[in-house]
C-alpha cells in the first residue's frame, strides 16, 4: 500500500472519529484494527454471518454508530480512508531520527486470524486509539472457568450471541457493570445480582458533573430501569470475597462493606451461579505509545495536550488510551485529534475560534469532568488484598501465587513491580503483566506500573526476522509481507 498521510491504530469510537475528522479535511488515512470489522469494543458487532436484524438491542446510542458507519463507508468509497481489519499491530517504528518529525512511522501488523504473516504500513502521522481493557483484582478461586471479565461477557454476547452461563453474577466496581448486567439479562441470562462495591452516596459530591451531563444521567437511569424490569437485584457496598467450585464456578460468596470499604463480619452470603462477570474499572493500552517514547500521566495513560498531541512529533492519541472515560469522550477526543492532524500536517494551527472546534473542546471538557467523577466515585473494596490468601494465583499466565509475591517482598528485597517480576515470573507470561499488574502491585504493596513491552502482540520469530522497516521512508513504501514459515522443510517439533 502506498504511503499515507495518517495511520490510525484502532477503529473504535476514538479512532473512527479521528479518521473521519481527518478525512473530512482531505487527509489520506489508513485505519487499522485487529477485529474483523470496525467498531472497537464499544461497537463490537455480531459476526456478519449471524445476520442479526436488530443488533441495536444490544447497544445504547445505536444511532451514533450508524452515523459513524455511514460516514466511514462514504470515505472508503471516495478513497480517503482505507480500512485494514484483521490487522494486529505488533510494533510501530519511528522512521527517521528521534528528534525530527521527518520520516513518519512504520506500522507493523500481523494479519489475522492466523497471525503468521505481517505487513508494514507507512504514514507521516499516527493517531493511537488503542483503547482500554478491564482491570480485575484477584480473589480466591478467580481462576475458575466461568469467572470472566464483565466486558468479556459483553464482548462474547455482542460478537457471538452467546451467554457465559445460565445463572450469572455480575460484580466488582465501575460503570461498565450496569450495561453488562442489563444486556445479559435482556439476552436471557438469569442475572443473580449486581454487586457493586461502591456506595451510591459516592456520587453525591459530584452533582455538578452529573448535572452537566444530563445524557449520562438518563443513561444510568435507563440501565437501572432495565435491571428492575428483569428483576435483577442491585446491591451497592457489596463485594465478592471468593468464588467456589472444582473445575467450574458453582457459587460466589458475597459480603457487605462498611463505610470504609471493609467487609462487615458475618455479612457473607453464598450465591449459587455458573458464571461470574467481574471487573474493577478499566486500564488504558499504552504499550505502543510508550515504546515510541510518549510520556505517560501519573495515572498510567498516554499524556496529550489540548490537541491530543503527545510529546513525540506527529504522534497523537485519543480515547481510552489517554484516560478512561467512555465512548462519547473517546469520540470527542478523536475528532479533535483528527482535526489537529489535518491542520498540523499542512503546517497550520487549529482555528480555536471556530465553533466546531470549540464545540468538540467543550464536549471533551464536560465528559472528562464526568469521567473524573466516576473515577473517584467507583472504588473497589478497600481490603481486597487482605482476602488474597497465599494460595491464590495472582499471575494467571505463569501461575504465580500470592505467597511467592509476598516472599519476594519480605525475603528477597523486592521493592518494585519489576523486581517482583524478576524474582517470581509474575508478569512474564503471554499477557506480559497486563492482567496481573494491579493485583501483584496491590499484594506486594508497591506502585502499579503499566506493562511495558515493545511487542504489542506476540510475533513469530520468522516474521520478526523478515520485518520491513521504515528505512525507505523517502519513497512510497511497498507493503512488505513477511512470512513465518520455516526456511527448511524439516520442522523440528518438541
Amino acid at each position, binding site marked *: 500500500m502506498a504511503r499515507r498521510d495518517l495511520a490510525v491504530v484502532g477503529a473504535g469510537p476514538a479512532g473512527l472519529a479521528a479518521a473521519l475528522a481527518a478525512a473530512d479535511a482531505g487527509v489520506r488515512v489508513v485505519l487499522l484494527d485487529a477485529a474483523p470489522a470496525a467498531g472497537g469494543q464499544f461497537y463490537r458487532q455480531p459476526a456478519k454471518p449471524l445476520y442479526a436484524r436488530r443488533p441495536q438491542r444490544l447497544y445504547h446510542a445505536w444511532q451514533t454508530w450508524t452515523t459513524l458507519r455511514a460516514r466511514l463507508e462514504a470515505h472508503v468509497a471516495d478513497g480517503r480512508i482505507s480500512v485494514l481489519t484483521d490487522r494486529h499491530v505488533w510494533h510501530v517504528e519511528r522512521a527517521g531520527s528521534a528528534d525530527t518529525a521527518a520520516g513518519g512511522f512504520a506500522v507493523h501488523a500481523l494479519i489475522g486470524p492466523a497471525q*503468521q504473516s505481517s505487513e508494514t504500513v507507512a504514514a507521516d502521522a499516527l493517531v493511537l486509539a488503542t483503547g482500554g481493557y478491564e482491570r480485575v483484582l484477584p480473589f480466591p478461586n478467580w481462576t475458575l472457568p466461568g469467572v470472566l471479565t464483565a466486558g468479556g461477557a459483553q464482548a462474547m454476547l455482542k460478537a457471538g450471541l452467546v451467554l457465559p452461563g445460565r445463572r450469572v453474577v455480575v460484580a466488582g466496581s465501575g460503570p461498565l457493570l450496569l450495561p453488562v448486567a442489563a444486556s445479559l439479562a435482556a439476552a436471557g441470562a438469569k442475572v443473580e445480582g449486581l454487586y457493586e462495591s461502591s456506595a451510591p452516596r459516592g456520587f453525591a459530591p459530584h452533582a455538578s458533573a452529573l448535572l452537566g451531563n444530563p445524557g449520562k444521567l438518563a443513561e444510568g437511569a435507563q440501565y437501572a430501569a432495565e435491571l428492575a424490569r428483569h428483576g435483577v437485584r442491585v446491591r451497592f457496598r457489596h463485594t465478592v470475597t471468593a468464588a467456589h467450585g472444582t473445575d467450574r464456578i458453582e457459587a460466589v460468596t458475597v459480603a457487605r462493606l462498611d463505610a470504609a470499604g471493609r467487609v462487615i463480619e458475618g455479612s457473607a452470603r453464598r450465591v449459587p451461579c455458573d458464571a461470574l462477570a467481574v471487573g474493577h474499572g478499566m486500564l488504558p493500552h499504552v504499550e505502543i505509545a510508550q515504546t515510541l517514547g510518549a510520556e505517560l500521566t501519573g495515572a498510567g495513560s498516554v499524556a496529550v495536550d489540548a490537541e491530543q498531541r503527545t510529546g513525540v512529533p506527529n504522534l497523537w492519541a485519543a480515547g481510552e488510551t489517554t484516560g478512561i472515560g467512555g465512548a462519547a469522550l473517546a469520540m470527542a477526543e478523536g475528532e479533535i485529534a483528527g482535526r489537529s492532524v489535518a491542520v498540523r500536517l499542512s503546517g497550520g494551527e487549529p482555528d480555536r475560534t471556530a465553533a466546531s472546534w470549540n464545540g468538540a473542546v467543550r464536549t471533551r471538557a464536560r465528559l472528562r469532568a464526568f469521567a473524573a467523577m466516576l473515577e473517584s466515585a467507583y472504588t473497589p473494596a478497600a481490603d481486597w488484598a487482605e482476602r488474597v490468601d497465599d494460595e491464590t494465583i495472582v499471575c494467571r499466565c505463569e501461575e504465580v501465587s500470592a505467597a511467592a509475591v509476598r516472599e519476594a517482598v519480605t525475603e528477597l528485597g523486592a521493592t518494585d513491580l519489576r523486581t517482583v517480576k524478576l524474582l517470581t515470573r509474575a508478569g512474564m507470561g503471554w499477557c506480559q503483566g497486563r492482567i496481573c499488574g494491579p493485583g501483584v502491585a496491590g499484594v506486594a504493596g508497591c506502585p502499579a506500573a503499566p506493562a511495558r513491552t515493545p511487542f504489542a502482540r506476540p510475533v*513469530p520469530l520468522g516474521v520478526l526476522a523478515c520485518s520491513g522497516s521504515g528505512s525507505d521512508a523517502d519513497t512510497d513504501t511497498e507493503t512488505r509481507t513477511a512470512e513465518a514459515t520455516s526456511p527448511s522443510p524439516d*520442522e*523440528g517439533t518438541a
Partner: protein
Amino acid sequence: MELAPRDCDLAIIGAGMTGAACAWYATRAGLRVALLERGAVAGGTTGAGEGNVLVSDKEPGPELDLALLSVRLWQELAHEPLFADSDGDRVAGHGFEYEAKGGLVVASSTSGFAALEDFAREQRALGVTAETVPADGLADLEPHLSPALAGGVYYPQDAQVQPARAAALLVRDAVRGGASLHTNTTVTEVTRTPDGTVDGLVTDRGTLRASWVLNAAGTWGGEVAKLAGTHLPVLPRRGFVLVTEPLPKLVRHKVYAADYVADVASSSAALQTSAVVEGTAAGPVLIGASRERVGFDRSFSLPVARLLAQQATELFPALAEVQAMRSYLGFRPYMPDHLPAIGADPRVPGLLHACGHEGAGIGLAPATGHLLAQILTGQAPDLDLAAFRPDRFGDGDWDAGWEAEDGRGAAHAPRAGESEGADG
C-alpha cells in the same frame, strides 16, 4: 527506612550480582557488611541479562583464570542446601535455577571452525574442558540445530542461572548472617579522613562509617568512583534479549555462534550481533546477543531485534514459527580492555572496586566475591589480581580516547583468524 548511624567493616555500593556475591563471601568471612542499593536488589544489569556462567568465551589470560575459579564456585553455591527454596516441586523459581547444561559453540564455515578449534586448544592448555564436535556430531547434542554448520566445540563446564533470584538469595543469606541491606538508598558522598582514607558514606537516608567501601555499582561504577574522588572508565554497552513463548526442550545447551567471542572482544562502538540461543528452566528460549555503545539509550531497536531473530532462526530453523513475547535491554559495564576492576584502589586507601565485568558479571561474581573476601581478611588471593587493578588506566583521557572505531587504545589484541564481522 532511615539508616541508623552504624559502623561496619565493609560498605558495598550496589546490590546486583557482584555486590550480592561480595556481601555473601565477606559475611561468611566474618566481616560486618552493609549493602546499599539505590533501587532494588538486581535492579540494574543483573536483571537484564541471561544468567551466563561461561568459560567457553574466555580467552586464555586473567579472565579465563577468573572464570575457571568462578564456574567451580557457582557449582558449590548451587549445591548449598540453603539456596534451595521451599517450593521444590516447581521448575521455575527453584533456588536460582542452576543448570549445568554446557555450552556449544558452532561455526558456519570451515575456516571459522578451524579458528574455533585453535581457540579451544589454547583454552584446554589452561584447564578448560573443550570437546571438538564435527559437523555430523552436532545433531546428537542439539537435534534442532541447522544442518548447515561446519562443526563446533562443546564446553561441559558452562552453566546458567536465573540471575535476579541468585542475587536475591545470596543477599538473603548474607542478611541472615548479619549483613544489613538498604534498598532505595542512594549514596551521595564517600567520606574520607584528612589523610584521604575512606571512612564512610553519606546517603539520602543517613550516614554510616565503614572501614572499607566497595564500588560494586556495575555500569554506574564510574559515577561511584567519582564520588570517591577517583576515576574508573566504565561505559555502558547496550544489549538486547528476545524472549519466546514457553517451549518444551528445543535447545538443550547454551548454543552460540563462534563470532560471539569476537564481538565480546571488539572495541567498536558500532552494533555487533551474533547468535546466542538457550532454553530456560521455565520454558522460554532466550535469544541474544547484541552489543553497541549508545550511551544509556533505552529505546527499543527493531533493526537489532530483527538481526537477533534472523541469526537465531538460522541456527535453529524450528524457531521461525515460535512467538517472541517480549524483548528487554540492559547495559553491560564495559571497560576498555574488557577486564573488570577487582581489588583495592591504590589511589584511595579504603576503597575497593568490583565492577566492569561487561557481559560476564553473573559468571564471574562468585570468584570476585571470594577474592575480595580474601583481600579483606588479609589472605593471599587465590589469583594474581594485577590485571584487574582499578588504577591500571591512569587518569588519562579514557572517556574520549578509546572510543575510536578502530579499537585504538584497547589493550586487547585480536586473535588470529578473527576480525569484526568474521563468520566464526
